[in-house]
């Protein structure tokens, strides 16, 4: 069993590399707001590093690592209780590889066929806007999916860091602006390219000549692409089956979590305190949705501490960071293995990301977790 902290950092790092690549890509696209020429001019900085064998290798490695770790995280899920963000992340993450594969194959074939062709941004845009709009749609949706997935991941990581206070005001608008500007750039450059196609028949003919063999090659590789996608689908199916198996596992062994306010929740053995509470609609703060990052789900165990799984490294680190009192546990990491526990929530249910950023402001010994209504 690899260390949870290591896995988490690895996933984060690979995701950051991928995000850097996507940001470069989209920034380049956004330059289309100025002109196609500007897009071409900025390539050397924004795109070409990734075409270098070193950059390309790193990118491929990160893509593989991120995908595998993501699939592993899905297979490691224990229950259906997910936040809305989690569901979005899961679905978008699973959709990304099959949608990207055509883009990767097409561009690599095209660049292998004619290294010069790929470098002329205008020609690629002409293909998208005029000759094969199918690819354009694919690209647009990939941009949306990848960006939303990446932005959600980046946001939910950054928002828990103390530094968010200072950079949040900049990062959030950038996260919103980049894809919007990129799409606007795409639309503007498309208009420019379409005009040129009409006014410059020689250029049009040149593209058609280049395109014919490429599309022939693409058709040949289509079955191979399909096979890759099928293989991926099989892996995803396997992962989902593992997840389902985990969820059905130990279904007949009910355990009980009692809360100090008198609420109680039933769940099956092996679920975390937080998951059992969420399943019974108990109000329990969980800003990072059970990733063990934020520490807002921390609880004090009043009875049955022996029923819980031992602390892992991730939990130790997070508890230390948020100045948790001795004996506290993270609700999302403490698995209920025995018959039942009695816990008290240390943070009110409405605790937000600031509880993770400035834990000192939120240290409330023995807080019941329920807000007292105003008199």
């Amino acid at each position, binding site marked *: 069993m690899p260390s949870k902290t290591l896995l988490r950092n690895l996933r984060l790092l690979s995701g950051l590399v991928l995000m850097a690549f996507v940001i470069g890509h989209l920034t380049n696209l956004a330059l289309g707001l100025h002109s196609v020429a500007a897009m071409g001019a900025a390539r050397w900085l924004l795109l070409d590093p990734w075409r270098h064998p070193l950059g390309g290798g790193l990118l491929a490695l990160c893509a593989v690592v991120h995908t595998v770790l993501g699939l592993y995280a899905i297979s490691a899920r224990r229950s259906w209780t997910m936040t809305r963000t989690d569901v979005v992340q899961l679905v978008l993450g699973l959709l990304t590889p099959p949608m990207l594969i055509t883009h990767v194959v097409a561009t690599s074939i095209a660049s292998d066929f004619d290294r010069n062709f790929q470098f002329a941004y205008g020609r690629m845009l002409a293909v998208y806007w005029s000759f094969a709009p199918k690819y354009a749609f694919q690209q647009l949706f990939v941009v949306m999916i990848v960006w939303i997935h990446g932005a959600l991941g980046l946001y939910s990581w950054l928002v828990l860091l103390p530094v968010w206070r200072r950079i949040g005001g900049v990062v*959030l608008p950038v996260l919103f602006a980049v894809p919007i500007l990129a*799409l606007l750039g795409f639309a503007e450059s498309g208009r420019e390219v379409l005009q040129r196609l009409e006014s410059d028949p020689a250029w049009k003919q040149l593209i058609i000549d280049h395109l014919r063999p490429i599309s022939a090659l693409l058709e040949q590789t289509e079955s191979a692409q399909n096979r890759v996608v099928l293989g991926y689908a099989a892996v995803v199916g396997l992962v989902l089956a593992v997840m389902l198996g985990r969820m059905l596992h130990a279904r007949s062994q009910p355990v009980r979590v009692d809360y100090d306010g008198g609420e109680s929740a039933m769940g099956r053995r092996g679920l975390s305190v937080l998951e059992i509470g969420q399943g019974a609609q108990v*109000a329990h*703060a969980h800003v990072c949705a059970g990733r063990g990052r934020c520490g807002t789900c921390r609880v004090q165990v009043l009875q049955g501490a022996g029923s819980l799984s031992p602390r892992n490294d991730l939990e130790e680190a997070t508890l230390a960071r948020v100045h948790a009192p001795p004996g506290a546990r993270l609700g999302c990491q403490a698995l209920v293995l025995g018959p039942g526990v009695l816990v008290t929530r240390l943070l009110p249910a409405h605790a937000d990301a600031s509880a993770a950023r400035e834990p000192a402001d939120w240290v409330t010994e023995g807080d019941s977790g329920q807000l007292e209504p105003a008199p």
Partner: protein
Amino acid sequence: MMSWLLAAKVRMDALAADMAQAPLEWQAWIDALAISLMSGTGVRAVTYCLILLLIGGSVEWLFWTYAYGPLRALQATLARSAREALALSLRRLLLLCSGVLLFTGASIAASAVLSWPEGVQEAVLDVSLWLMVLRLAWAVAEVVLAPGRSARRLVPVRASHVPWLMATVVLVALLGGAARFLPDLVEQIGQAPHSAGVLRLALATLTTLLLLVAAFGFMGRPPRLAAPHVRLPAFPRSFPAAALVLLGYSVWLLGSPALSGVTMVLAVVLVLQMVLRDAVFYFWSARWDMGAGLAGAAATAVAANQLLPHIVLSASRFGVVAIGLGACAIALDTPLAELATGQGPLVRFGFSLLGVAALGLLTNLVWIAVRSTIDRRLARIGPLDPHGEPNPDARLLTLLPLLRVSAAMVLVVLLVLSSLWAIGIEITPLLAGAGVLGLALGFGAQALVRDVIAGIFFLAEDAFRVGEYIESGTTTKGTVERITLRTVALRHHNGPLHFVPYGSLGTVRNNSRDWVIEKFNLPLPIDVDSETVRKLIKKVGESMLQDEEVGHMLREPLKGKLSRIDPGVKIFRCKFETVPGKQFDVRAQAIKRLEAALKAAGIGFADGRQTVYLQRGAEPLLIEGARPA
């Protein structure tokens, strides 16, 4: 009639034509769409749509980074009372709706900046409005029904119904939005009127089916909060609801969308009016009083006696009617100018209806206020014991039910007259007619009227109450047993019951008011010492004050004094004051005690014997049995 049938026929033919021609037209439209999509235009449209989504999503995300904390706090707060629950829910609704509105507003505003291909912007606007309607409906349903969180639910529905109700609301919003936006879009942009017709038909049919299922599923057995002992035969609510839905559908099918809209609005208004009482009283039910432990029935009883729930109920009933009329106006395409100025026969009729509804609700409110006040007062007085002491509340017990009936009659008459007036029917002749009739009746029933009016004054002046002993003239006397509007029933002490109309009551002598002074004579021999007797009587009086039996009845103790000297007799006048009706008991007691006291003091009562002195010369002639002077 014929023209209606003709119109229906035309409409049916049109529907059949739509059905026949739609597939081909649809195919052509889809092909055209595919071609225009697979070109630069299509790419641009899709790109712009994605940009709008991103902009709307970004704004909403930004909003939620601030609003999510408050939302969670609201969700975690436990409501302790109905008002608090409502306030919390409204705040939650405000947050949810703000998110939706921000999304829609931002994307629509952004769409104005972009240069769209022809026809796409309309479609985008319609779709974003549709999406907004759907999400708003969802938010409202979630706040009101609170699936999975019974503590937050704002309406009395069974927990097992909640997910289905939620699904119904969302689906109806989906279908309704689609019916509002999609067919027009297909007709205007796609130039495919037949397809639009079929789409309309399909959406209307689906909505009708959904509403029918909902009518039978949710209205079959309403969750009654009423007390179990008032088990009225339940009105089958589902059937009329389903009938209304079907009626609306048929009217639409026969070619009058406006009339169908009015029918549907009426149906919704009716259904709302049916469930409104339970929904409003739910807020005053014991569910919200933590630990009160009242059953639902008791709670409703509590709510029924409070004025506030009724005010809220009346206001919401009126609100529903007003909104319904507004919706009717929209469905009938009434011009806004007419609405604003109150012109046009339909608009005037609508306003009249609104006025009548307001009058009815106001009357209802006044009636409930009067009734609940009277009932509360009556309940506080409690039932009267007719053989007990005359009770100062007896008059209230008599007057209050009378007042209640009179108030009901006055309110009904006022309501009817003012409703007629509000609708625009001239009521002056009616009133005049009633006046003439009243005159005729008045002559005929002069005595009756005199009795009633005299009775009102007797009661108002508090001349007598139930349980009091009154005399009228010389023969009519007795204890008041019953008071009605026209007569008073007097029980004579010998048993007969007199029914005396107030008009012939005349002078009333009430023997049961405040106090009674009783006097009697005590004849004693001429030779007793007046002062000794006076003191003796006073002593007896003081001892009577201590008596358990009569002491509490006395207001002034027994006293006596020499009032007259007759030949051979000293007459002592005794008097005392008691509470009304007790003078006879007290007098008997007083005489008994006086007799004993006099005997103990060696004083006999004056006897009626006369002493005659026969004298011959200066020597009195002694006769046996006579005492010397």
